């Protein structure tokens, strides 16, 4: 499907042998590797052999700290197993080509993406209400439209208030009242795109600061059990995650952040898996 060869290895020892022989461009492991003391050296060797990215598949969330501690892992793909083939394919393409950004990668070819750029923070409520209305007018259920509205609202709110960072590394808009009317000029502009290909509604929200780091994004993942989260920072991302089927963070540190949420519109709620997928991609620095 991807045009690349795929080799399977059963265990770290076998995988290590194949590293030298095959010199793979992409290494994919499952979460069980985190518990193996040989995991760190394996990842180091994989990178030394020229593997561009090491993607780890997680079936749960409890091993995220262990995976991160390995250091060499640059991308995480989290899903209640089995991972959807389409998700794995898109992810492999993104990593192999080094082209991470764009919701269009998750939609069928030719799907139209509607685009809005917010230039005032007060546009948020109107933009998300219009998005909900548009989806309903195109035949999506109230449930889907409401979920998409919530996700878009939270992602835009994060891009407006949490993303801006100054030279000192402080976030000057983080504690400003969320209903304040702020100009979103220059780097502050927030771009929203959305589209639907009859499989997914995709919402993409991007900012030009690139201040969201992987650990913060994964912190939201760790708090995906928002039932216990209370009302602290990160609640918005946790709620967004719980309201969609697939949340993707594309991070280019210091340059750009893009968050994509996918809501599966193919199935009724009773036929959908209860857990959502969650990916974090960090653009390689040369």
């Amino acid at each position: 499907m991807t045009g690349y060869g795929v080799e399977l290895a059963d265990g770290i020892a076998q995988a290590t042998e194949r590293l030298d022989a095959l010199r793979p461009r992409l290494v994919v492991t499952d979460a069980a590797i985190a518990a193996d003391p040989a995991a760190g050296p394996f990842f180091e060797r994989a990178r030394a052999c020229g593997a561009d990215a090491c993607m780890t598949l997680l079936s749960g969330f409890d091993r995220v700290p262990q995976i991160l501690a390995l250091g060499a892992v640059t991308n995480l793909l989290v899903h209640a197993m089995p991972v959807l083939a389409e998700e794995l394919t898109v992810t492999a393409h993104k990593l192999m080509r080094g082209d991470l950004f764009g919701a269009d990668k998750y939609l069928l070819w030719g799907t139209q993406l509607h685009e809005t750029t917010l230039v005032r923070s007060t546009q948020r409520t109107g933009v998300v209400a219009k998005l909900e209305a548009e989806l309903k007018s195109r035949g999506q259920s109230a449930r889907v439209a409401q979920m998409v509205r919530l996700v878009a609202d939270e992602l835009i709110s994060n891009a407006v208030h949490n993303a801006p960072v100054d030279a000192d590394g402080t976030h000057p808009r983080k504690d400003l009242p969320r209903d304040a009317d702020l100009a979103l000029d220059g780097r502050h502009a927030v771009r929203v795109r959305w589209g639907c290909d009859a499989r997914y509604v995709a919402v993409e929200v991007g900012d030009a600061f690139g201040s969201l780091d992987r650990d913060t994004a994964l912190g939201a993942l760790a708090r995906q059990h928002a039932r216990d989260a209370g009302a602290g920072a990160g609640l918005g991302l946790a709620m967004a995650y719980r309201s969609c089927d697939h949340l993707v963070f594309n991070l280019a540190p210091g340059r750009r952040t893009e968050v994509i949420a996918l809501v599966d519109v193919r199935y009724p709620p009773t036929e959908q898996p209860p857990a959502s997928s969650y990916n974090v991609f960090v653009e390689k620095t040369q």
Partner: protein
Amino acid sequence: MTHGRLTITPSSGQLALSGSIDESSELDKLLARAQNGALVLDLAGVTFINSLGVRDWIRMLAAATQRGITVELVRVSEPIIHQLNMIIATRARTHSFFAPYACDRCGREDSMLIDADAHGAQLAQLVPPGMTCPECGTAMVFNDFPERYFSFLAPQDL
């Protein structure tokens, strides 16, 4: 009366809320409308709540506890039920709520009102009450996972 994008309408000892609960809702001000130590909120018209609204909601519940006011919910809309299920701290005594049902015969999907007091024992067993399709009169099926949708009713969490 409006608080931001939320409209508040007093009605026979209750406050009917409609619209969006968000950063502009000032929910704590509703506590001044409590009667006999209770604030009864009709949430049928609430179509949206975001994380800022959730924070405001939790603050309102905490302030109510401090002031000895009981917050009770009736006709809770589906978007609010999703938050009650997701975040334990948002929960309050719920007398009735809307839930998704679908009709396999005519395809109608609807949000149906469930009386939580009358069906308490059944709901505790995660059995959705029966509903009849308003369109064709056929028995409807519950259109979500009961263990997920009814989790806000779990007694240990209240």
